[in-house]
């Protein structure tokens, strides 16, 4: 009789412990998904700003065709990229292309003086900052989540329950420095 009680109590405790571990994994996974959604929002916002920016620059510097093409292609690559690592690489390429577009714009004082352009420029700088912020959050929660599912005891059952490690939002190594676009 006593043995039965002990066994039941131990099983209940184990069940409770498992539930706690499981819930923690679910919470962490949800955080990585929310983090990814944050990045996505900012990437979309930047992509939405670009056509207007290209139009604004074209109005003053229509012959700088290479840089427009580069930006347009990089923008399409970001929209079409699948998975965090590929998206990060495309996003970095777009940041670089935008940096060159702004460098070109430097040569046109009238363009720089235009209010529309200044506004777009500040919006874009802000969005780049927000992408960097969302990226820091996402990478830090992914780090926590990946560590959690690869540690004991979760490593025994995380895979079976469908918890897969997530990619960092980073072109190659995790936590690579974010390229700063100089737009001022």
């Amino acid at each position, binding site marked *: 009789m006593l043995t039965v009680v002990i066994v039941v109590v131990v099983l209940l405790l184990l069940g409770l412990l498992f539930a706690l571990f499981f819930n923690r994994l679910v919470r962490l996974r949800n955080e990585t998904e929310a983090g990814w959604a*944050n990045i996505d929002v*900012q990437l979309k916002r930047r992509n939405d700003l670009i056509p207007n920016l290209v139009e604004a620059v074209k109005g003053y510097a229509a012959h700088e065709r290479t840089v427009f093409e580069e930006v347009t292609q990089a923008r399409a690559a970001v929209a079409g990229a699948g998975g965090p690592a590929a998206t990060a690489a495309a996003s970095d390429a777009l940041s670089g292309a935008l940096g060159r577009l702004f460098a070109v714009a430097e040569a046109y004082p009238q363009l720089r003086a235009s209010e529309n352009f200044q506004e777009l420029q500040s919006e874009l700088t802000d969005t780049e*900052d*927000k992408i960097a*912020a969302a990226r*820091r959050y996402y990478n830090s929660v992914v780090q926590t989540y990946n560590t959690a599912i690869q540690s004991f005891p979760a490593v025994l059952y995380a895979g079976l329950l469908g918890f897969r490690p997530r990619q960092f939002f980073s072109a190659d190594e995790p936590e690579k420095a974010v390229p700063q676009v100089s737009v001022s």
Partner: protein
Amino acid sequence: MTGELLVFFALLMGGTAAALYAVYGGPAAVAVVVGGICWALFSWFLSTRVVAAVTGATPVTKEEQPDLYRIVENMSIAAGLPATPEVRIVDDPAPNAFAAGRGPKQAFVCVTSGLLQTMDHRELEGVISHEIAHVQHRDVRLMTLVAVLVGVVAMISDFALRMIFWGGMGNRRGGNQNNPILLAIAFLGLLLAPIAAIGIQLAVSRRREYQADAGGAEISGDPEGLALALRKLEQDPREIRHMNRSTAHLYIEGPLRKATDARGLLSGLFDTHPPLEDRIARLEQMGGFKLPQ
């Protein structure tokens, strides 16, 4: 953290009640403890409304302060907060900042106009990241809870001491009449309990400051920016007006530091914030840099 604190304060209150019981008997002890709990609940539910009124913070819009607003937005994104806290400004030449509000969803971040004038973009980012870390760690709620508990312990012991003086030493039914040593211990306990409670409160506050510095540096990804901001605060002699003990733990820099300039051996025990020097040193260690002296 919160659990340990609750246990600690329960012990402290239990101890006070036991001392009361030893001196004065059961019914009085029960009455005082029940009264204390009611008072705790009352002040807990009232506390959140008080802060904004006490500090005189007014909300600002994105149009009025685009740079500040964007920094708050960015730091909230980097901290993964569910919403961007409201931004408020206190008109005060002394540079300082604080966060308030019960949880991450109803939080607000407040800076003084002096802070906006003193800090450049990078330093401002550091200050805001520290405040956002407070919001993320739910420190405001924790510190309010601790303040309420300290109040209750102080109230119970104060009440008990008065009863001893007015009612005479243990000459009522149920009281322990014949043991002067026990009475002396109880008396001493009642005197020391509030001091211990305040000591704990301040130790918790200092610990949360270090954690908010570390959290802030992680959020902004720039420990040096925060360290530079702290250095500026250190060098600025101005002190914020409208200041009192009850909201001191909310600020980035202990606002009462400059009022108590004489630093004795024990004065560190009663600071809400660790010395800025130590905080800067920890950030330097974390980021692997060294600020010029």
